[in-house]
């Protein structure tokens, strides 16, 4: 075989390999062709992010941050932007996803704002909310929200994570919120991201920007749902900027179908004395990567990072926490509870970085897991990087199962096996639910958890069959 033919064949092979990425190029081209009214700085951000994504491509399990999570199946699937016609979702179709007691609800269908089924008519004083695309469009009229140029893309780092780069290049819409200085928004804001099955594999890249000004308070619920059983990729990025003494609660509710890939990045910048409560509930999705990245950029910031993940079948639920303490006297608490059945795989990666200036930092992380089958698996990895000398950092992880004794105790009082099992699972999950302060969201979360755990309890096998699960757990790995 001649060298020239060999080279040609190699080129062909490379072309075949490269082909799956063409869908992203097409999406990028399609988006540009829309000629949206966007400020130039945004277009530059997109171009820069696109180049980064093209250069780097998707991560592999050789990448330390992706060691336990393979995105090969995602990379193989030719996701495309949804055609506009798929967005004909009615209010009835999403009625079941209502969050009772919310201040307002913005609905996005396949990544695009759906004003007809949103509800933001009577807003509490101090809350500004609109679609992010519209906020930028206003900018073109010269009435741009002040500072948006510094804030949007100012925190979520396209160089750190290619999914953030991909989102920055391809986002079409999302929510823009500003809470005015000193305002306390008592009811939660509900952002509902709906992926509607359009036949082909759809991708969306929701982008959310939340500005919580000094001494103000708000709770934001990002809720991801699917209509239909089709495969979809939802790659969201939320930047949340909390000013001095602001108090903000953020909820991520992932309840998409099992054919979905959901990647989310929450990047929070906390000012002096600001408080964050981040709550994640991963109940659905086939492959989920939940990145939570707060930076305590002002002195005395406080962070609660709370999460519950429930997986069965072949669900893969990866929680990647990165808490950066940059200033003194900050405290952070991470609590994640996982319930895994069948062949589900959970990951808890808890990284804490204490910068040299962050003396008197108090950081703690706890990851507790219940493995309900021999094949369920959890990888839990604490990673402490401490560059200051006067700090307190602790971490711990546990792995358990449903014990026969409490199960028998409950059954001996008349609860059937499914009810008893569900009650025990719920008790374990309740540790996380109890940390949710906002009553309407708490009730909402409780109802979702009950529903989900009933499914798991119905499926789970008797405790006696669970053996040797220690082999399925890798933990206590000290890194850095």
């Amino acid at each position, binding site marked *: 075989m001649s060298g020239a033919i060999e080279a040609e064949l190699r080129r062909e092979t490379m072309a075949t390999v490269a082909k799956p990425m063409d869908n992203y190029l097409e999406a990028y081209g399609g988006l540009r062709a829309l000629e949206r009214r966007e400020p130039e700085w945004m277009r530059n951000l997109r171009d820069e992010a696109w180049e980064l994504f093209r250069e780097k491509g998707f991560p592999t399990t050789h990448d330390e941050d992706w060691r336990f999570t393979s995105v090969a199946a995602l990379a193989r699937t030719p996701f495309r932007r949804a055609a506009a016609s798929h967005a004909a979702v009615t209010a009835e179709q999403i009625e079941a996803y209502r969050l009772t007691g919310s201040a307002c609800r913005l609905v996005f269908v396949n990544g695009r704002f759906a004003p007809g089924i949103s509800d933001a008519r009577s807003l509490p004083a101090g809350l500004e909310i609109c679609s992010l695309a519209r906020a930028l469009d206003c900018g073109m009229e010269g009435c741009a929200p002040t500072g948006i140029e510094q804030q949007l893309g100012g925190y979520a780092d396209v160089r750190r994570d290619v999914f953030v780069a991909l989102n920055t290049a391809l986002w079409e819409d999302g929510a823009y919120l500003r809470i005015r200085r000193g305002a306390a928004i008592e009811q939660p804001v509900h952002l509902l991201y709906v992926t509607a099955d359009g036949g082909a594999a759809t991708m969306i890249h929701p982008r959310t920007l939340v500005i919580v000004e000094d001494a103000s308070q708000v709770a934001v619920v990002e809720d991801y749902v699917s209509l239909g059983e089709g495969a979809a990729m939802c790659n969201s990025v939320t930047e949340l900027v909390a000013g001095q003494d602001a108090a903000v609660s953020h909820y991520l509710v992932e309840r998409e179908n099992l054919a979905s890939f959901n990647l989310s990045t929450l990047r929070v910048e906390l000012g002096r004395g600001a408080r964050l409560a981040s709550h994640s509930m991963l109940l659905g999705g086939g492959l989920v990567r939940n990145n939570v990245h707060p930076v305590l950029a002002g002195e005395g910031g406080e962070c609660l990072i709370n999460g519950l993940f429930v997986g069965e079948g072949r669900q893969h639920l990866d929680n990647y926490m990165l808490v950066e303490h940059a200033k003194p006297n900050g405290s952070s608490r991470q609590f994640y509870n996982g319930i895994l059945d069948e062949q589900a795989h959970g990951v808890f990666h808890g990284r804490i970085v204490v910068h040299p200036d962050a003396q008197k930092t108090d950081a703690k992380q706890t990851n507790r897991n219940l493995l309900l089958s021999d094949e369920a698996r959890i990888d839990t990895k604490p990673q402490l990087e401490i560059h200051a000398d006067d700090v307190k950092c602790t971490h711990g992880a546990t792995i358990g199962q449903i014990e*026969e*004794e*409490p199960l*028998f*105790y*409950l*059954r*001996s*009082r*008349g*609860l*059937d*096996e499914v*009810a*008893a099992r569900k*009650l*025990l699972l*719920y*008790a*374990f999950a*309740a*540790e996380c639910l109890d940390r949710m302060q906002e009553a309407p969201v708490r009730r909402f979360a409780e109802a979702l958890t009950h529903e989900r755990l009933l499914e798991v309890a119905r499926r789970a096998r008797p405790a*006696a069959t669970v053996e040797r699960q220690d082999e399925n757990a890798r933990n206590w790995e000290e890194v850095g």
Partner: protein
Amino acid sequence: MALLEIEDLHASVDGHQILKGVNLVLNAGEVHSIMGPNGSGKSTLAQVLARRESYEVTQGRVLYAGKDLLQMKPEEAACEGVFLAFQYPVEIPGIGNAYFLRSAMNAIRKYRGEDELDAMDFLPVFRERLKLLEMDDALMSRSLNEGFSGGEKKRNEILQMAMLEPRLAILDETDSGLDIDALKIVAEGVNALRSSQRAFLVITHYQRLLNYIAPDFVHVLVDGKIVRSGGPELALELEEKGYGWTEAEAQPA
């Protein structure tokens, strides 16, 4: 018809034969006490009757109200009116006492085709029973047995019994770990439930409890078999002489 008929019951735990042919008949309205040395199989008998599935019945039969008890799951036995007050009540963080109790009552009511109780129906009865057992309301909003003292746990078992109103109540060493005041309270709780419709099987190592819950019959269980049966005087005899002589009787001739 007897409420409970145990015939030649053999049972094993983790491959060890513990019960080796127990025979016992209880009628409604009667209080029977089972006494015996440690390791004689008292708790195993209690757990088998409450249908713990990891305890394997290898021989014999048990009729409860004319039905085959050994075919029942634990929840079915409970719904049919069998109640076991545990020797070691389980602590379950995250499940509220009152919530759990109402769930249990409603599971049983549902099984019997009765309407579920709402909080308004439940609370008055609950408060009254709490008072009977001299229990603090505050305990009830806490998690099931979590952080309870030994005595509080045992009282909680009797509280559950008082709420669930079983036909057959099995008390497994409810007296162990109780001081005399708590013992009296527990005994009063039990006595308040004595009725012609209900039978009690009171398992104990010591005669002390029987001063407060007067049994109609006393049985001595040694090495998996009942070796003596008699009236209340048998308990006093055991207290005086210890179990040594019963163990000698249990030796095959």
